């Protein structure tokens, strides 16, 4: 597997999706559709080829069974249906008969028989008008690819036998089934072309602390199986065959980081203050209540962002109880029972122990409801998602609001609507919440105080309408990633590579400035909930802009605390004022490089 060619070192820049640094051996996930050349067989070969086909079926079945098993462990029974559908396709009698017929009667090679039979079905799927059902053909395509792969023995039995130890999986796109195909524990790093910050693979990579970088084009050309690669999931950089110098540099960075990580007292809760005494409050971004306790232990003052869409795809659905059957008629599927949501939200509120919990209502596109892919990927970024989706499907919205309002009795729960682009949507959303509140009151649930409802600021239109929107919001939360993406009309992988996705673009800074000022004027809190806050430089700028409430991933809490304690607020303000006066991205970058480079500001005092 080792390549003979001694390749030169090269540096590839992408998007950091899951932090951590790892050096390992690249392994290209096999191309999903192997090519074959034998199209016809002879009469004498029929029996033997039929056997070969049946063996491939049996092998595929075993693989899918074990994928199903692993998926169940990974994402719950509900999500594992992907494997189940493919198993059923494999066993589909008509499909099987058509393939066998082609082999026996038309003397097709099994490879060709499979492809032709599959293609016939696929053309039927393509002819469907409903794009959602059209898309179901991809399940069949997956099965076809698996059968062909097993037949041509490209990835035959067990990928895990001959894999490198420090396995860095390299693939244009990694689906859940690819991830399950390899043993997750063996994957030490992930380098992909396409993946969103909220895709399932990213979430899994983060929870298993697998460094991950996406947005690297031409992977097949850039990285080969056997290459030594260094994956920097913090900066989004991949070094192919890193030089000793680069590797050493990273090693020492890592050691330094480990040292400093341990110098922060994990039990040190409460707000951190800047050098000149301005408090900055930290909160936790999470999709599971299990992280809340450790978050609180590391200084988070609550949950600044709970991503509820995970609820819609994960198997957390409790069995609906008889007493709540009244919601059944409008409940679309088992994942969406009010009781299941209530149960999770209540546990979340309890885990936070009276501290803030901001629950974001469903933030995904319509396809996300179905396939489980979440917002943040290219396809899902525009159109029907977030509050728009909720307003279009009042039954889902109502269910979620009921669950949230009921759970608010167990702690300090607030609700935030994502993707708001107009005042109208805030009004409609609030009205829905008010109706639910009145309904619950009629059912005997008395609210001590109204549940606060905030607006997620991520669509530029909402920034333009900010003062008006804040009249209908009790607080604001900025989704920085989406705000940048929509403001700059850039967010795709190639945008990042080309530098078009630029968090320090003057337009982004101006938008953030506007949020800080308007929320101050309206006397409403503004939370920063995006990934931006987790980068020391951006955090420094956010503090300088005046933000005092930052919400971020558990892992980033302690390092951000260090940044806050090393920051001089008045100085940061001054820096930001200078930044805001700069008209070009280039000038901003130069200013940052000259004045805000690591070691010049917060780190000086942070030690």
């Amino acid at each position, binding site marked *: 597997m080792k390549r003979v060619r001694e390749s030169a070192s090269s540096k590839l820049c992408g998007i950091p999706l899951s932090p951590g640094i790892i050096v390992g051996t690249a392994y290209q996930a096999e191309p999903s559709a192997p090519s074959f050349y034998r199209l016809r067989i002879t009469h004498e070969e029929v029996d033997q080829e039929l056997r070969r086909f049946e063996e491939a079926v049996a092998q595929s079945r075993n693989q899918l069974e074990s994928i199903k098993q692993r998926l169940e462990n990974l994402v719950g029974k509900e999500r594992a249906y992907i494997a189940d559908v493919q198993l059923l396709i494999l066993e589909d009698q008509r499909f099987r008969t058509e393939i066998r017929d082609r082999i026996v009667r038309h003397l097709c090679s099994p490879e060709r028989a499979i492809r032709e039979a599959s293609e016939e079905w696929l053309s039927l*799927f393509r002819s469907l008008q409903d794009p959602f*059902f059209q898309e179901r053909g991809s399940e069949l395509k997956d099965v076809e690819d698996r059968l062909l792969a097993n037949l041509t023995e490209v990835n035959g039995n067990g990928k895990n036998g001959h894999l490198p130890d420090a396995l860095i999986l390299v693939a244009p796109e990694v689906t859940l089934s690819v991830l399950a195909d390899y043993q997750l524990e063996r994957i030490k790093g992930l380098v992909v072309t396409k993946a969103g910050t909220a895709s399932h693979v990213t979430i899994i990579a983060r929870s298993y602390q697998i460094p991950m970088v996406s947005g690297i084009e031409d992977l097949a050309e850039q990285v080969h199986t056997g290459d030594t690669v260094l994956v920097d999931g913090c900066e989004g950089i991949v070094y192919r065959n890193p030089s000793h110098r680069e590797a050493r540099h990273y090693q020492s960075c890592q050691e330094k980081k480990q040292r400093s990580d341990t110098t922060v007292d994990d039990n040190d809760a409460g707000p951190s203050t800047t050098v000149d005494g301005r408090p900055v409050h930290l909160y936790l971004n999470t999709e599971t209540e299990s992280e809340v306790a450790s978050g609180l232990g590391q200084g988070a003052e609550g949950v600044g962002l709970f991503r509820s869409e995970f609820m819609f795809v994960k198997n957390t659905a409790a069995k609906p109880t008889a007493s709540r059957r009244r919601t059944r008629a409008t409940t679309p599927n088992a994942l969406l029972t009010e009781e299941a949501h209530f149960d999770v939200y209540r546990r979340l509120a309890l885990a936070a122990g009276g501290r803030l919990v901001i629950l974001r209502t469903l933030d995904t596109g319509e396809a996300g409801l179905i396939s489980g892919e979440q917002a943040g990927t290219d396809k899902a970024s525009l159109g029907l998602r977030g509050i728009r989706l909720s307003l279009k499907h009042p039954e889902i919205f109502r269910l979620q609001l009921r669950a949230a309002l009921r759970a608010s009795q167990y702690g300090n729960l607030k609700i935030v609507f994502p993707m708001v682009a107009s005042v109208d949507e805030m009004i409609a959303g609030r009205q829905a919440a008010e109706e639910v509140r009145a309904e619950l009151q009629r059912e005997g649930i008395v609210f001590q105080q109204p549940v606060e409802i905030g607006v997620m600021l991520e669509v530029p239109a909402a920034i333009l309408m900010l003062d008006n929107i804040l009249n209908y919001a009790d607080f604001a939360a900025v989704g920085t990633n989406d705000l940048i993406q929509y403001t700059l009309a850039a967010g795709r992988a190639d945008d990042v590579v080309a530098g078009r996705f630029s968090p320090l673009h003057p337009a982004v800074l101006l938008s953030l400035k506007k949020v800080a000022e308007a929320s101050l004027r309206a006397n409403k809190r503004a939370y920063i909930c995006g990934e931006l806050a987790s980068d020391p430089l951006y955090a420094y700028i956010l503090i300088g802009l005046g933000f005092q409430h930052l919400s971020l991933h558990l892992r980033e809490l302690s390092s951000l605390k260090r940044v806050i304690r090393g920051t001089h607020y008045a100085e940061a303000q001054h820096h930001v004022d200078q930044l805001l006066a700069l008209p070009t991205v280039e000038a901003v970058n130069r200013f940052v490089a000259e004045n805000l480079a690591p070691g010049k500001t917060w780190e000086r005092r942070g030690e």
Partner: protein
Amino acid sequence: MLRKVIRVENQLGLHARAAARLVRTASRFESQIKLTSLNNARETDGKDILGVMLLAASCGTELQITAEGTDEEAAIAELVQLVQENFQEQK
């Protein structure tokens, strides 16, 4: 032979997961199961996952279920219940 028409009420219609559940249920019976979408007149064997997905039965589709065989009564009853319950997992 038994026949019953029922409306698909779950939001996503007979999407992959629902289709899988339906096919698994149908396959437990010896009877021949036929599904017809009265909206687009497509028809399929209820034990055939590809056919069921190709019904493209979205929310609101009138679905006709036909069962013929020794256990047709039980088959119809269970399939109707499954659709009525919006394909909730049956324990």
